[in-house]
């Protein structure tokens, strides 16, 4: 065994990342800066090799197990930390490296480093693998969409809504707008939500790009191409998400920006829109009031995250989403 491994070590230098075992090339690894990445199928087979490396080079750290998601800016992998056996999420930035570190990565890292909150994803570290920047974060196996596929007690749902609002208030109070709140960016573990993906977030400034947030959760002022929006766009997304939790399906499923606007205008018409709609009839009055305040077309009338956590719906511990009759 020992002689084989020495042979491999030697070959690593020669062929940069191609391991040869018994004169037969069997596995391709990405190998860079002393870190090994490989597919899950072969993970077991090469375990010994990797652990040997660990003893030789201390910073062989993460092994990718599988791809778990893909966003606009990056691909997310489930990976294992070979030192602690801990399962982590690795976010690889897709953007080419021609222009140095992509600005979305730069912002995500420097913003995440400021945010230390139980309901916000924790950035463990950032590393460079195969010349690509990777973020190492805690791993959660379910996002909100998957979570809602199963039945959950109402107090869990209410707790999730409240914790999401707390986290968003925490973000906003640090002058940061998330700009991409959607169920896929809210992970759930043990009925506690965690907000992820700060790739689009940025520190508030009076002039911003309108093309942010996934279409279904995009606020009307963004759909109208407004360049000077504020924290209220996150509150609109939250309104959509909270109603999605209650209805168990997305609220507005537009196919284009125009279609999305049309759906919004069709549903929200006048101050009493929720009373005319039968699907809201079973909801608690306080919950409806919260939704109504979040889903205001006019961003200046929408409540802020701070007002939302003080809303009577959360003060009254017997108020749940549905009327219990």
């Amino acid at each position: 065994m020992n002689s084989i491994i020495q042979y491999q070590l030697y070959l690593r230098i020669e062929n940069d990342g191609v391991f040869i075992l018994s004169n037969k090339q069997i596995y391709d690894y990405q190998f860079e800066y002393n870190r090994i990445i490989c597919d899950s199928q072969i993970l077991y087979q090469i375990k010994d090799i990797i652990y040997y490396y660990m003893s030789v080079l201390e910073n062989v750290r993460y092994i990718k197990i599988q791809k778990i998601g893909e966003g606009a800016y990056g691909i997310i992998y489930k990976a294992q930390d070979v030192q602690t056996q801990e399962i982590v999420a690795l976010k690889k930035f897709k953007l080419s490296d021609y222009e140095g570190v992509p600005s979305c990565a730069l912002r995500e890292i420097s913003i995440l480093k400021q945010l230390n909150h139980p309901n916000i994803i924790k950035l463990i570290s950032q590393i460079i693998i195969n010349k690509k920047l990777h973020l190492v974060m805690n791993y959660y196996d379910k996002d909100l969409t998957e979570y809602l596929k199963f039945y959950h007690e109402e107090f869990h749902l209410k707790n999730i809504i409240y914790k999401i609002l707390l986290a968003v208030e925490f973000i906003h109070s640090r002058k940061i707008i998330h700009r991409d709140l959607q169920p896929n960016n809210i992970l759930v573990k043990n009925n506690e939500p965690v907000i992820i993906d700060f790739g689009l977030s940025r520190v508030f400034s009076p002039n911003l790009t309108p093309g942010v947030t996934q279409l279904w959760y995009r606020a009307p002022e963004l759909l109208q191409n407004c360049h000077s929006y504020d924290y209220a766009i996150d509150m609109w997304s939250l309104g959509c998400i909270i109603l999605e939790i209650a209805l168990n399906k997305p609220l507005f499923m537009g196919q284009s920006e125009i279609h999305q606007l049309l759906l919004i205008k069709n549903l929200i018409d006048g101050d009493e829109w929720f009373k005319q709609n039968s699907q809201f009839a079973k909801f608690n009055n306080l919950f409806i009031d919260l939704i109504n305040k979040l889903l205001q077309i006019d961003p200046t009338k929408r409540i802020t995250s701070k007002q939302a956590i003080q809303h009577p719906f959360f003060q009254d511990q017997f108020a749940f989403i549905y009327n219990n009759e």
Partner: protein
Amino acid sequence: MSQLEPFEHHYSKQYLEVFGCSHTNRHIYSEKMICTDCGIFLNNPNTKVYKTLKMKYNAFFNPIKVLQGMMVDGLPNGPIKQRQEFIEFILQVSERLNLSINTCFLAINYIDQYFNKVAVNENQTYLFVSTALMLAAKAQELDERVPFISKLKRYASMTNHPEISQFSTQDFKSAERSLIQQMEWKLQRNTLLDRIEALLSFGVIDDDDSLGQQQQKENKDSTHQQHIKLRDLQENQILQYVKEVESKYVEVALQIIRDEQLYFQTDQTILALSCVAYLRKKAGLLNIWSQQLQSLTGVGAQKISSSVSQIMTLIAKSKSFKTITKLQATPSDLYYQQISTPTNNTLTTVSSNHLINRQFQFEQKRQSFGDAIIQKAKIPLLQSKSTAHLGDLSKQHLSHNNVTFTTSNNYTFLNENTTTLALNNYISSHNIHPNHNGGELDKKYEQVHKVGGSLFRQFQ
């Protein structure tokens, strides 16, 4: 003096017209009354506070907490060798790349820290300085404004440092990586400029402030100085003082960050507060500190007085240096003489507008340090607009538009032919900015020094 009127009468219709917000929606954050529409701090129900919409911030979240987070004590790292050249270089390149002045301050902050910790090979220094500027842009500019390495290289080598074009993209990338690692990814920072802006957004002038008579009327036998309270003046006279403060802070901050002794040996919070105090003094107010500022920041006048006098010496120094090298009757001086004639117009701020990057909520395009350069091409537009302002004083509440030459309604001003002789002179004075970038920055600063100087003479 004891006017116990309710707020609503206080902030009259006239106030609304001149200052753009009547502070009707208020909220108490951390025991302080804040206008949620514009973020002004209303300390005492008996005094009016002034600021223009230029300094508008929506106060959805406790702005006092934001301020406290920003006003963390501390000294920057430094000083470093060749710092003046680096700053000059950053300003030049950022102007060409259309980046805001806030980004320049951030980049200066990065290089101060980096060069203080790492010894950089001498022929590579400007590689690192230009990369720091790119990093600062990546950290806070809109994505479409972030320069590509190729563009950065092209524009950076158009300065006195053509050697930058020799570096490869890979060199830039490794410089960037080294910078990021050295700063541990902490790229979002509060610079001196951010601190001053945060303070100004709470409103730093109120009607309890006083000013000396002779500064107002140029009275020849003003041996015994008469104090006037701002509350005795008309709203658009007060606007003049408010604008004076809100338009000069970038220049003052630039002067301070260039001065190693002052910048590196004074606590950043104290420095920002002293800047505000200095700006008040420069605008003509007699009391550099007020109850309003005292209760906003919890800092008393005695804590800042020494650094205020340091700022005064600093700006006086740069002024005397400039007057030796320049003739007395420069066009900018002429311009200032004209506007100090008894008419109560308030355009003292125009010539420095191109330095101002503070943008407004309703603005469609971000105004930046570099934008103004592009706007040089549109100079007739700018002029006719200023004309409209001089000709029609009732429009003064609109004059914050002065700094936004970009919106489409600019063209409406083109039709107003109210040009005066004085204005023609002003136009010719404004044309001293050449269309290319070469010596422009220098000219600009000379102008700044002139202004600083002429005001300073009054204090001596």
